[in-house]
Each structure stands twice: as structure tokens, then as C-alpha cells.
């Protein structure tokens, strides 16, 4: 096998006497579709925060494309291709979707410190914005202020911003959380259509999405890695059923649907 794109090794995070993450290791191959599941309080969000640099691990290391990024600040990791979305939308309310993407694309193209040119005037920025608007079904609302958009559109913009950063590794934190049924399909399509060369780590409680999307899964329980494997193995693992899925009906239904 080739070298993994993202490699987290023996990550430990202690908050005082509580160990939120206990010796967790995770490898993401190029183009991976990897799901991270676990019951509430299993340490999924802590792990995301460690990977993105919001938290500094007590011990352990994180390598992105061969480079040790454990000590880097969040924005430096973004520049190296590690981008996340948020469980609760984190948008720029006074911007329109078009402005949001133009700003993000400019920053990504290294134009963020240009103060003399007008936003969007630089080569390639407007084109990339158009592609992203199209891809995320945002063209029809591109000129409306973000704060008035419907929740489903806001959720799409949340992911579009992350993709505008041209990620190598994309961390999706519950992308369909709270999206009403009518707007769900649109969102699921865009998640399924993410570029194949981007490695995706998905955190999700929605088992339909997890089992239709993921090729590999990691199960976290109480901050510890319980098991890792392909969806079939995980689905049939009695320990997973016991600690996480409980009765297992939901899982069996999901497996039937695949």
C-alpha cells in the first residue's frame, strides 16, 4: 500500500484528569472515504479538533503527506490541505455566497494580502466560484445575504467553503445534521460527488449516509479506538453492536438498503 495522506499516531488528549482521546491512531489513504462513528461523548469532535489544530495533543503526532504538522497552527494546516466543516454552520452572515466563495478562493490562491485590487478581479477567482456555485446548487441564491438563506442552502455553503480551500483531506462533521427531508437529497448528492482524489473523513450519526458513503470505518468509544475495518466487518462486529448500535435494527435496515 502507498503511504497514507493523513497519519495520526497515538494521539492522547487529556483535559485535567479526564482522558478525552486515548492513544488513537488513524490512517487515511489518498481518496479515502472513511467514516468515524461512535456514541455521544466518544471523543469524535475532540479528535477533529486535534487533527485541525484547534487543540494541541498531550502526546502523539500527526503527519500530513509526509510532513509532521503536530505543532502547526490551524490556518497553517489549512494551507497544507487539511480542511474541515462544522457540525453547527460557521458562515459569514453579511456576505453573499458568491462573496464568501470569492474571498475563500482568493485566500486559497494566496491573494488574501492583496489590498489594492478589487475582490474577484484576479485571474481564475470568478471562474472557480462559478464552478463551486454550480456544484453546490447555490447559483440561484448566490447574490442573497447568507443570513437569509434556507437551512439546506446554508449547509451546502458550509461544505462549499471547505471545498473552496482545495483540500487534500476533508473532515466532514455531521454534514446532514438538522437538514429537513426536502433538502436532504441535494446535500447527499453533493457529498457523494466530492472529488475522488480528496480523502474524506466523515463523522455522522446518520447510518444511511455512513453505510452508503464509507469504504472504511473507525469506531471510537470513550476516547479509545474500538475497532477499524470495512463496513461489513463493522456491521457484523458484536462489540460494535453492543456499545454503539445497541439493538442493531437500524443497522440491519441500513445494510438492507445498500
Amino acid at each position, binding site marked *: 500500500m502507498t503511504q497514507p495522506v493523513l497519519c495520526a499516531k497515538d494521539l492522547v488528549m487529556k483535559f485535567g484528569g479526564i482522558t478525552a482521546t486515548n492513544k488513537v491512531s488513524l490512517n487515511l489513504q489518498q481518496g479515502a472515504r472513511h467514516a468515524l462513528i461512535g456514541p455521544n461523548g466518544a471523543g469524535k469532535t475532540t479528535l477533529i479538533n486535534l487533527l485541525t489544530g484547534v487543540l494541541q495533543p498531550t502526546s502523539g503526532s500527526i503527519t500530513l503527506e509526509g510532513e509532521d504538522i503536530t505543532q502547526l497552527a490551524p490556518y497553517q494546516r489549512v494551507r497544507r490541505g487539511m480542511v474541515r466543516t*462544522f457540525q453547527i454552520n460557521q458562515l*459569514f452572515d*453579511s456576505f453573499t455566497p458568491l462573496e464568501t466563495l470569492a474571498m475563500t478562493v482568493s485566500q486559497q490562491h494566496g491573494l488574501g494580502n492583496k489590498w489594492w485590487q*478589487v475582490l474577484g*478581479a484576479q485571474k481564475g477567482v*470568478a471562474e472557480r466560484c462559478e464552478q463551486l456555485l454550480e456544484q453546490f446548487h447555490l447559483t440561484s441564491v448566490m447574490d442573497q445575504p447568507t443570513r437569509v438563506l434556507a437551512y439546506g442552502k446554508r449547509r451546502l455553503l458550509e461544505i462549499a467553503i471547505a471545498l473552496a480551500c482545495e483540500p487534500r483531506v476533508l473532515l466532514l462533521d455531521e454534514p446532514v445534521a438538522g437538514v429537513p427531508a426536502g433538502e436532504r437529497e441535494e446535500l447527499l448528492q453533493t457529498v457523494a460527488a466530492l472529488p475522488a482524489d480528496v480523502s474524506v473523513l466523515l463523522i455522522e450519526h446518520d447510518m444511511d449516509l455512513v453505510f452508503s458513503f464509507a469504504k472504511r470505518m473507525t469506531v471510537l468509544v470513550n476516547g479509545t479506538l474500538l475497532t477499524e475495518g470495512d463496513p461489513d466487518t463493522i456491521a457484523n462486529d458484536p462489540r460494535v453492536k453492543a456499545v454503539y448500535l445497541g439493538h442493531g435494527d437500524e443497522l440491519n435496515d441500513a445494510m438492507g438498503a445498500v
Partner: protein
Amino acid sequence: MDTQNLLQRKGRWKLWEIPLWIAALASPLLLASHALIINEIAIVALFALSLDLILGFTGVVSLGHAAFFGMGAYSAALFAKLVMPDPLVGFAVGVATATVLGALCSATILRGTDLTRLMVTMGVGLILMELANKLDWLTGGADGLQGVIMGPLLGRFEFDLYGRTAAWYSMTVLLLVFVLARRFVNSPFGATLRAIRDNRLRAMAIGIPVTSRLALVYTVAAAVAGAAGALMAQTTGFASLDLFEFHRSADVMLILVIGGVGWLYGGITGAIVFKLMQDAISSITPQYWTFWIGLFLVILVLVGRERLIRPWSWLKPGKNGGKS
């Protein structure tokens, strides 16, 4: 291209802006007897524009902006008194010292929440005022720095008693800074600042180096405030402790509240309204003019700026469109 047009629309000059600026530049000639207050309005507008860069466009509150205003003023005045009387060189010196001070102070706003920042910026302002007070061998202490004689502008235009040259000087600087600030806020750089204002967490998560951006914009705002201060000292030929006073920082924030934050004309509108009101009311009741300004502010905040400007919108049911 459609999206490109949409993006660049905001940065374009509107048709009404050009006659407005022509009128502004002609005002010292047309209203020659009011040149002094025109000069003062231009300076205060410049100062308010500077605060808007950090408050309105970046979301950093400051109650110590007078520190940079005073720094620019004192250094321009001292330069004229001790080194040479040329106004433009003195102006450059005033801006430069305020820039250096801003760069140093930018470290104080990078941490903490809005409230701690308010306190820290206020503290810096008070420290500088006390320094200007104690170093009386240099600054003249509580008596102020007197005997500042300015040379002619560009070697030709003498500062006259009616303040006409002064008004043109300040108005020209205001226009130049306005043009620059306009490019600045509509650029990718400016967009990242607004992104930091709207959502700092996400700004970080898309790769914006938040702390260095904040430090930079704070320094730029300090430079502009220093420019306003330098103009003040040069056109009045005087620098006093009053320039550092807390009420200046508070006034300029008030001006922005009146005119509207995050909008380049907000500071200018606010400055015009505030200064004209101050002038008119204090000529009627010299002791109690602050009461009326206060009353106006309360009404403005309660009713909302939009509805105050367009009283007919009160009658429309359902749609009470007050923006702030």
C-alpha cells in the same frame, strides 16, 4: 462575465459620489466664513474613518483611539517646532510615529474578548496622556505645546486666519485616504477582515492568519488616526493634552454610531451631523449641549437610523426596516 460583475459592483464609484466630493472640495470657497468648521469636520471624519476600519470592518472595539490621534498631533507639532516647519514633511512624521505606536499596541488587541480589549485600549490612551502631561520639558505639559509655526503648504500656500488653506489641506487628505480605504475594504484583504469580523472561528478554518491580519489592520487604522491628529495640530498650530482625552475616543465612536459602522461614508456623515449639532447647540446653550447630543443619540438608537431618515416608513405596517 456575470459573477465578476456582481463581485466588482460594490467597489465601483457611484454616480452621486463624484458631485459630492466636488462639492466637498469646493466648500471652503463657497462657504468661506465657515472654513474653520469645514476643516474640523474633515479631520474628525478622517479620524472616524480610521476607527471604522477596525470597528466596522474588522469588528475590533477600541476606546483608546485618541492615543494615535494625539501621537500624530504631538509629533507633527514637535517636528514643526524643533526641526522644520514644512507641513507635508511634518505630516509624514506624524503618520509614521502613529504607525509605529499602532504596530506596538497591536499586540494588546490580539488576545482577550471585547471587554478586555476596551479596557486595554483605554488604558493605552490614558498612559500616553499622562506621559504628555509629565514630559513637560518636551510637550509643555498641561499648558500644551505652544508656538507651533507652520510654513506654507507646498512652499506656496500660507495658512490663513480664516482657515481656508487648512480646510483644503484636510479635505484633500481626507479624499486621498478615502480613495485608498475604499480600495482596501473592497480588496481580497478587506474581505478577509470582514470574514474575521463575521466569524473568527471559520476565518481561521479557511486558512486566514487571523492574528497577523488583526495586527496589520490595527496598525493601518493607527496610521490614519495619526494623519488626522497631525492635521489637527498643523491647522490649529497647537497641541494640547485634550487631544489624548478619553472623550475624543468616545466622541469618535459616537460619530460612527450616528453615521453607521462598516460603511465608509458612515464616519463622514456622522462627523458632519455631530459637528454641526455641536456647533449649533453649543451656540444656543454652551453648558448643556452634551445633554442634547445625548438625547439625540437615545432617540437614534431607540427609533433606528433608517426610520429616522425615512419617517414615512413608520406608517408602513409590518415592515419596520431599521437596520441598527
